[in-house]
């Protein structure tokens, strides 16, 4: 017997803050994280790409994105919503969110749910920037981002998170976006890195500002509390549980990476702990509200070890130039996390919230198969879809800057600005 849902002030308070925190993850957090990793002459182009993604997707989400991803009526059953809520038509300030997680009775405003989801739609294409950094035309980047949002992000979000989505109906577990955000963006990053080609250089470029990168990683960690714990859509024990698993996985992953760094390379590095923490956060994202502390420790450690090898060994062997390891961290980390959710999901977590989600470790082998299926769907859709978009953009505008522009740098050539003055 479910009570009539009403507005919950506390849940609303937490989710408003969480929305702001997820926005913070794109700019300044991701911008600083990526910006510090590129060469001085390209830092503004990376910052610009992150910032304009926030602006562009924010507008497109309100106009049509939210409706296509989450409306209860559909253009393509199980795959795509319709334009019912375009421009938030029909959603008033006191409409309650039709979506909830742990608290069916205490809802947040519908507008707030839409804006919370908006910030997820913002950061997902922004992650891909790491793959094509330092060589993509600004005009091509804009076209790519718009197309990718509607052709890949929105359908995957609908399939996994909308109550009508076919993967949701199958029972996929993705608490805050392991598949929808990280696998999706990570695989798109791989496709883009392969399509756009390697940067022209004799050797790897050192990051121009490592403090930026570490500060960015710390800001991502901070914002991730909103990303994961906010996805409970309530200020309750489930949010707290997600908070705990998030922090724990990040911490363990950073430590494991530092350990592996010192064993393999002789020193624990700043770039290593920054990357390790992000990897752990990525991996815990689908699992945050489903696993217990043991699961979080395991997921953080496993993801860190796997991504370490991916980024330091496999990438070099295979020879693709995923400039800032968007695939190596987000793609692989997301896949590891999504599959681990199917292993470590502990039914005790949801006992007080009316759910029953368990993984392989608790006797449910079916969950892992569902997770695998969802990952496959996301991988295939993202890989092929991204390649198609890039091909079309390349035929019309051209995706990569020419060699001379790439040598001079994108800041001066694409934006006629310099990041840092030298004399004054």
């Amino acid at each position, binding site marked *: 017997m479910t009570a009539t849902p009403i507005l919950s002030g506390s849940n609303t308070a937490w989710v408003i803050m969480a929305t702001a925190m997820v926005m913070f993850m794109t700019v300044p957090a991701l911008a600083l994280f990526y910006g510090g990793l590129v060469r001085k002459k390209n830092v503004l182009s990376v910052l610009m790409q992150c910032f304009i993604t926030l602006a562009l997707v924010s507008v497109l989400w309100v106009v049509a994105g939210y409706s296509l991803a989450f409306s209860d009526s559909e253009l393509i059953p199980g795959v795509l919503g319709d334009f019912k809520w375009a421009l938030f038509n029909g959603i008033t300030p006191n409409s309650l969110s039709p979506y909830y997680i742990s608290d069916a009775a205490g809802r947040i405003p519908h507008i707030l749910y839409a804006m919370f989801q908006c910030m997820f739609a913002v950061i997902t294409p922004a992650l891909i920037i790491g793959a094509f950094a330092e060589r993509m035309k600004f005009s091509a980047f804009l076209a790519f981002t718009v197309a990718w949002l509607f052709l890949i992000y929105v359908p995957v979000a609908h399939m996994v998170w909308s109550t009508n989505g076919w993967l949701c109906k199958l029972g996929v577990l993705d608490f805050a976006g392991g598949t929808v955000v990280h696998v999706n963006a990570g695989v798109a990053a791989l496709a883009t890195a392969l399509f756009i080609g390697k940067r022209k250089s*004799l050797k790897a470029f050192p990051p121009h500002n490592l403090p930026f990168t570490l500060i960015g990683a710390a800001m991502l960690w901070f914002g991730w509390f909103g990303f994961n714990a906010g996805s409970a859509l309530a200020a309750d024990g489930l949010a707290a549980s997600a908070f705990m698993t998030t922090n724990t996985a990040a911490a363990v992953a950073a430590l494991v990476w530092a350990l592996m760094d010192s064993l393999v390379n002789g020193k624990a590095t700043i770039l290593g702990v920054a990357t390790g923490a992000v990897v752990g956060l990525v991996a815990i994202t689908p699992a945050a509200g489903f696993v217990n502390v043991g699961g979080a420790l395991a997921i953080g450690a496993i993801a860190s070890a796997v991504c370490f090898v991916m980024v330091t060994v496999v990438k070099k062997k295979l020879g693709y130039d995923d400039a800032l390891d968007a695939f190596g961290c987000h793609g692989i980390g997301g896949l590891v996390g999504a599959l681990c959710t199917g292993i470590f999901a502990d039914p005790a977590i949801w006992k007080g919230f009316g759910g029953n989600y368990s993984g392989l470790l608790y006797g449910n082998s079916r969950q892992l198969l569902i997770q695998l299926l969802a990952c496959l769907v996301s991988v295939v859709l993202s890989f092929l879809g991204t390649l198609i978009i890039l091909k079309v953009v390349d035929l019309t505008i051209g995706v990569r800057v020419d060699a001379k522009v790439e040598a001079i740098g994108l800041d001066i050539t694409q934006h006629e*600005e310099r990041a840092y003055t030298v004399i004054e």
Partner: protein
Amino acid sequence: MKMIVAIIQPYKLEEVKEALYAANINLITVSEVLGHGRQGGVAEIYRGNKETGNLLRKIRLEIAVNEDFVEKAIEAIQGSARTGEVGDGKIFIYDLAEVVRIRTGERGNEAIG
């Protein structure tokens, strides 16, 4: 003994270094400078204020060489730094009066190598 000062494009530094090492010239000093020659500078724009002719970032190499290495150094630098476009840079050759190795006190040709 000569002092070779070369102004080159920043993104050419790695190639030039490789070429110098291959010619057995290993001791160099590198600094970041601003300047322009015929290239004329680049445009920058801030809130509607567009300025052209700004100084560009360049790399300055300083290499002390014995007489018999001068042409080898010039070939190595010019061969690797050249793109054929305006802005490739310049090489200046100065007479070098004396060189001292601080650690040992060696002077002259022995201190250069």
